[in-house]
């Protein structure tokens, strides 16, 4: 029975999902176009508690047009092993959690909640439990 379910999961009909790949190629192009031609001309203004949080963790403030700390997310921005650990384990948690929960921010928080799905509300509560635990407790342990 276990093996049967396994085969089910990997028995993916690529052909009928080919539109997804077109959408994904579009998102990459969209990100490229926005960052090249539509980036903000001034730096992001963050809340005060967030500025204190970043300072405590020794992270850089956003520079002009920048969305995420370059030392973590851009190669050559000051590599450290703990940043690589964040990228690898963060990616794993996103992938595993999304499949396990049966959706992500779009599938549960936006489409699920707007279609009044109770499992989506439960998942969104989970998102916030995990996110708050990471921001308040785990990231300070990793980064300081």
């Amino acid at each position, binding site marked *: 029975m276990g*093996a049967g379910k*396994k085969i089910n*999961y990997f028995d993916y009909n690529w052909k009928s999902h080919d*539109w997804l790949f*077109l*959408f994904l190629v*579009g998102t*990459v192009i*969209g*990100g*490229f*176009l*926005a*960052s090249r031609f*539509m980036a903000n001309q001034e730096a*992001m203004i*963050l809340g005060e508690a*967030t500025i204190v*949080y*970043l300072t405590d963790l020794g992270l850089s403030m956003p520079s002009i047009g920048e*969305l*995420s*700390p370059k030392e*973590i997310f851009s*190669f050559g921005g000051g590599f450290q092993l703990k940043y690589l650990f*964040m*990228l*690898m*384990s*963060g*990616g*794993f*948690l*996103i*992938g*595993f*959690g*999304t*499949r*396990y*929960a*049966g959706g992500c921010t779009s599938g*549960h928080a*936006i489409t699920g*909640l*707007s*279609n009044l799905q109770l*499992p*989506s509300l*439960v*998942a969104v*509560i*989970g998102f*916030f*439990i*995990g*996110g708050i*635990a*990471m*921001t308040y407790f785990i990231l300070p342990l990793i980064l300081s």
Partner: protein
Amino acid sequence: MKKLLFLPVGIVFGITMFKSEAISWYRIQEMFLFDSFHMYGIIGVAVILGALIHFLLKKSTIKNINGEAIVFADKPKTYTASIIGGILFGLGWSMTGACPGPIYVLVGAGYEGFIVVLLSALIATFVYGALKSKLPH
């Protein structure tokens, strides 16, 4: 060929994610620190608009691009999977400041670190597939 329409839809999604700053690690920390209305505003508008669109589509007889009726499947009532999977996802969301779609947008925007995030997330979906039958749902 009609499927090519998904390309501009993706491009609009990418630009929207970038310009709204919803894919910013800084904004995600601000959200979890309850330090700004920014992300709650974006998600709130999306949910209200989504509810309106769901309502209108359910009332209308509009067909999708394949000429089929648009149906909304209910989410499976696997609450254990929702809460455990949700917590794991939330940990990753805060760690990287991204969810699945935004990973691709950030790769396109030139944040090379998200190539590592993307590969790791893809491996994780296969690991989930292998473990699925052993996990509580």
